[in-house]
C-alpha cells in the first residue's frame, strides 16, 4: 500500500511540477531580462498576481474547495484534477519566484553555441562538458524551480486532507498521518517515512549542488573550454526567445484563472460571512483574546524564522555537506514524524523538566523550517550584490552628510530588505502549520491556527472567516511596521535628491 501511495504522490508531483515549468517560464519571459525583472515586478500587476497563490494559506484553499471536492465525489479523476489544479497554481507561483530571483546564467547561449561548433574537433569529454554547460548554465534556474515544485507538491498535506473523500486525492502525507493516528507505533511510522526521506534528499541535494556550483562560485570547465567557448555573463537562453502575442494572452489568462481560483474566489465566497464573524467575536467577548493569540503565534513564528535563517546562513557558510544534510534531515521527515520524535525525546528524564515549556515547540518548528530556510539562504546568497554593498559601505566613510545618508539607504535596500522578506516568508509558512504546534505546544499556549481548525470542523464559518482575516492582516501589518521602524533606525534622517 505504501508503495502505491508513494508512487501516486510522486507521479502527481512530477506531472504538476513539469506542467508548471513552461507556464512560469512564459510568465518570466513577459517580465523581460533579469536585470529589469525586479523593477518590473512593481509595475507589472500580472507578475504580482502570479505570485499571490504562494502566500494563500492551504487551510483557506482547502476549506473553500472542500464542498467542490465533495460534489466531484462520483469521479476520482475530477477530484484528482481539482487537487492537481490547485497545486499547479501554487507550484507555478513558486517556480516563478525562483526564476525571478535567481541570477542569470553565467554561460551564455553564444558560449554554448560555440561549444557545439567544436563538436567535430574531437575534443575529449565533449559531451560531458556540453551537458555540464547546459545544467549549470541556462537550465540551472529551471532545474532548481522544477525541484522546488516537486518538493512543494510532495510535502503538501493540509489542502489534501480537507479535500479527501474515498481516499482521493491520494497523498502520502495524509496516508502516513492516518496510519499513525490510528495507532501505528513511532518506529513503524518512521520506517514508512524513510522512503519518502530518501526521495526528498535525492531532490534536495542536486538543488543545493546547483545553487552552490552555479551560484557564488565560478563554473569550472576543463582547461581551454572557457576560452574556446567564450564564457561571459549574459542573458539566459530561455529569456531571449521572443514571446508571441497569442502566447502573452494565453499566459495572462492562465494567471487570471490562478488568481481567481486561489485568491478571488476564496475571499469573495467567504466575504459575506466576514461582518457576521466579527460581530460574533465581539458578542462572545473573544476578540481581544483572539488578537492576543495571533500576537503570541506571530512572535513564536518570527523567532523561529529568525533562528532558522541564522542557522541556514551558518550552514551555507561552513560548506560542510555532511553537517548540512544532518541538520536538514529532521525537517525533511515532515512535520508529523518530526514532532513525534521530539515528543518521545522530551519524555526522557533528562529532557522532561522542560517538556511543558516553549522549547519543544520552538525546536520542532525550527527544525521543520530549516530546509526551506536553507534554500532561501542559498538563493539570497547567490543574489547578494557584494560589490554594490561594498561600494555603498565605502560611501558611508565619506564626509558628505548627503552621501552618507544615501549610502545608508542603499545598504539598507541591498542588504536588509531581502532578509526581512525572507523572515516574513518563513514566518508565514510557520504560522500556518498546524501539526507541530498541535503535538509539541505547552499547555498554556494555544496557537491561532489550531483554533481555526476547530472553528472549521464545527462549521462556524463566520468566526472562521473573521479569524482568518485577522490572522492574515495582523502579521502583514506587523511586518510593514517593523520594516518601516527598521528603516528609520538604519537610515536616520531624510535624504533629499535635488
Amino acid at each position, binding site marked *: 500500500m505504501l508503495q502505491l501511495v508513494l508512487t501516486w504522490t510522486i507521479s502527481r508531483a512530477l506531472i504538476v511540477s513539469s506542467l508548471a515549468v513552461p507556464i512560469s517560464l512564459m510568465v518570466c519571459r513577459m517580465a523581460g531580462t533579469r536585470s529589469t525583472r525586479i523593477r518590473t515586478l512593481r509595475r507589472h500587476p500580472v507578475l504580482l498576481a502570479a505570485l499571490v497563490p504562494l502566500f494563500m494559506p492551504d487551510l483557506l484553499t482547502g476549506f473553500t474547495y472542500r464542498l467542490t471536492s465533495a460534489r466531484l465525489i462520483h469521479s476520482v479523476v475530477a477530484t484528482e484534477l481539482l487537487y492537481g489544479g490547485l497545486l499547479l497554481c501554487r507550484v507555478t507561483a513558486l517556480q516563478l519566484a525562483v526564476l525571478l530571483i535567481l541570477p542569470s546564467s553565467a554561460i551564455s547561449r553564444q558560449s554554448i553555441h560555440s561549444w557545439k561548433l567544436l563538436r567535430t574537433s574531437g575534443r575529449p569529454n565533449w559531451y560531458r562538458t556540453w551537458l555540464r554547460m547546459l545544467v549549470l548554465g541556462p537550465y540551472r534556474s529551471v532545474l532548481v524551480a522544477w525541484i522546488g515544485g516537486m518538493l512543494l507538491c510532495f510535502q503538501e498535506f493540509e489542502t489534501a486532507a480537507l479535500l479527501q473523500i474515498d481516499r482521493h486525492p491520494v497523498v502520502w502525507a495524509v496516508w502516513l498521518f492516518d496510519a499513525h*493516528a490510528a495507532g501505528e507505533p513511532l518506529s513503524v511510522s518512521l520506517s514508512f517515512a524513510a522512503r519518502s526521506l530518501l526521495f526528498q534528499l535525492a531532490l534536495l541535494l542536486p538543488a543545493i549542488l546547483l545553487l552552490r556550483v552555479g551560484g557564488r562560485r565560478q563554473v569550472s570547465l576543463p582547461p581551454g573550454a572557457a576560452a574556446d567557448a567564450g564564457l561571459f555573463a549574459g542573458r539566459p537562453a530561455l529569456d531571449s526567445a521572443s514571446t508571441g502575442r497569442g502566447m502573452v494572452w494565453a499566459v495572462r489568462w492562465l494567471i487570471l484563472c490562478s488568481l481567481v481560483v486561489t485568491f478571488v474566489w476564496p475571499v469573495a465566497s467567504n466575504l459575506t460571512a466576514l461582518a457576521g464573524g466579527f460581530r460574533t467575536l465581539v458578542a462572545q467577548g473573544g476578540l481581544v483574546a483572539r488578537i492576543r493569540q495571533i500576537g503570541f503565534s506571530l512572535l513564536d513564528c518570527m523567532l523561529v524564522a529568525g533562528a532558522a535563517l541564522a542557522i541556514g546562513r551558518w550552514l551555507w557558510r561552513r560548506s560542510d555537506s555532511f553537517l548540512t544534510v544532518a541538520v536538514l534531515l529532521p525537517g525533511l521527515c515532515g512535520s508529523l514524524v518530526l514532532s513525534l520524535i521530539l515528543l518521545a525525546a522530551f519524555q526522557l528524564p533528562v529532557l522532561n523538566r522542560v517538556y511543558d515549556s516553549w522549547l519543544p515547540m520552538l525546536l520542532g518548528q525550527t527544525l521543520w523550517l530549516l530546509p526551506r530556510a536553507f534554500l532561501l539562504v542559498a538563493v539570497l546568497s547567490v543574489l547578494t550584490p557584494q560589490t554594490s554593498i561594498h561600494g555603498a559601505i565605502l560611501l558611508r566613510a565619506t564626509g558628505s552628510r548627503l552621501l552618507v545618508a544615501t549610502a545608508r539607504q542603499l545598504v539598507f535596500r541591498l542588504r536588509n530588505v531581502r*532578509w526581512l522578506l525572507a523572515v516574513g516568508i518563513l514566518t508565514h509558512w510557520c504560522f500556518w502549520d498546524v501539526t507541530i504546534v498541535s503535538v509539541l505546544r505547552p499547555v*498554556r499556549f494555544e496557537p491561532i491556527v489550531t483554533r481555526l481548525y*476547530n472553528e472549521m470542523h464545527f462549521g462556524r464559518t463566520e468566526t472562521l472567516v473573521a479569524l482568518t482575516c485577522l490572522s492574515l492582516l495582523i502579521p502583514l501589518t506587523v511586518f510593514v511596521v517593523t520594516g518601516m521602524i527598521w528603516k528609520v533606525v538604519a537610515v536616520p534622517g531624510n535624504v533629499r535628491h535635488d
Partner: protein
Amino acid sequence: MSVKQNTFLVPLVLVTAAAAGLALLVNGGRTGGGDARLVVYCAHDAAYAQSVIDLFERQTGINVDVRFDEEANKSLGLTNLLIAEKDNPRCDVFWNNQTLGTVRLMSDDVLQPYLSPNADRIPSAFKDAGGNWTGFAARLRVYLVNTDQMAATEAAVAEKLSQESLSRVAIAKPQFGTTLSHYSVIAAEQGMDELQAWHQDIHRRGIREARGNSMTKDLVAEGICDLSFTDTDDAFVAIDDGKPVSMLPVRLQDGRTICLPNSVALIRGCSHPEPAKAFIDFLLSEEVELLLAQSKARQIPLGPVDESQLPAEVQELRVWAADGADLIPAGRVNQQVLDWLTAEHTGG
C-alpha cells in the same frame, strides 16, 4: 573583498535565545508545583467546554489550564499524547468527548481510579465499576437524511441501505472518532467476522468514505448524498443552518441504539489530584449535564436532571438514549477493531 553583512541576524538570534530562556523560566519545570491549579486535556469542542471550565474556575477559584484537541488530530491526539506522557504526566484530568478511547487508556495503565460521589447518578452501563472512568452528557449515532431526496423513516433508510449501490450514502473513516466506536459496538454485538463482512459489503457497494463526521453531514446537507452515518451534534449543525435534513437513531440488530457519552478520568501520578477530583465531581453534576444539554450540541444527560430545563430536542433524544447499548463489551474489542482497520489501511 570582505563585506560584513546581515548583522541583524546576530541580534535576532540573541532575541530568540532570550525569548526561549524567558519562556523556559515562565513555563518550564512546573510539574512539581503545588499551587491551586489544574491541567485538563479536553477533547470536547472548545466553544462548549470553555464555558463549563470558566464556571468551575469561578465557583472554586482553581485555575485551569486546558489543552483542547484539534480536529487535525481526529480526537486520537490527546489519547496518544497521554500514552506518550504516561511516565511523567502533565495532565491531571482527561475530559474525552467519547468513551472507548478512554477505555483504551485504562488498559495502558494511564488512568487512576476515582469513585466520585456524583458518579452515583450515572447508570452503570456508562461507567467503569472500578472508577477508572465515568460517562456523562452523551451523543447518539444517527442517520442524517436529506429530506428533499428521501423520506426520513426507518423503512426508507432500511431500503436505501439494502440497495446494490451505496454511492449516495456516506460514512466517516472508521479508524477515528465515533465511527470507530460504532464499529466496536457492532463487533461486540455480532463478532469481528460479522463486522468485517459488513464493512467489506458496504465498501463493495460503493459507500462514500469521508474523513470525518462533519464532512458526512455536509455531503447530506448539500444534497450530494441522501443519507449518512453521523452524530447528533453534527446533525444539529445542519438542522440549525436550515438545511433540509432530519435524523433517525442508528439501531443495532437487537434494536438498541449507540449512545456515546463524554467521559472523564483521573490521570495516574498527576500533580494536582485534589483539584482534579473536584473538577471530576463538577463535571458529573446535574448542573453541567444541563449546561451541555442546553448548548448547541444538545448533549443528552445520562443522570437524573430537571426535565423542565431540557430543550425539546434533547427530551426526544433521551428516549432514544434509553435504548443505548452497553459500552463495556465494546471497550474490550475496541483495540482489536482498531488493529484490524489499521492493518487494512497500511496493507499490513
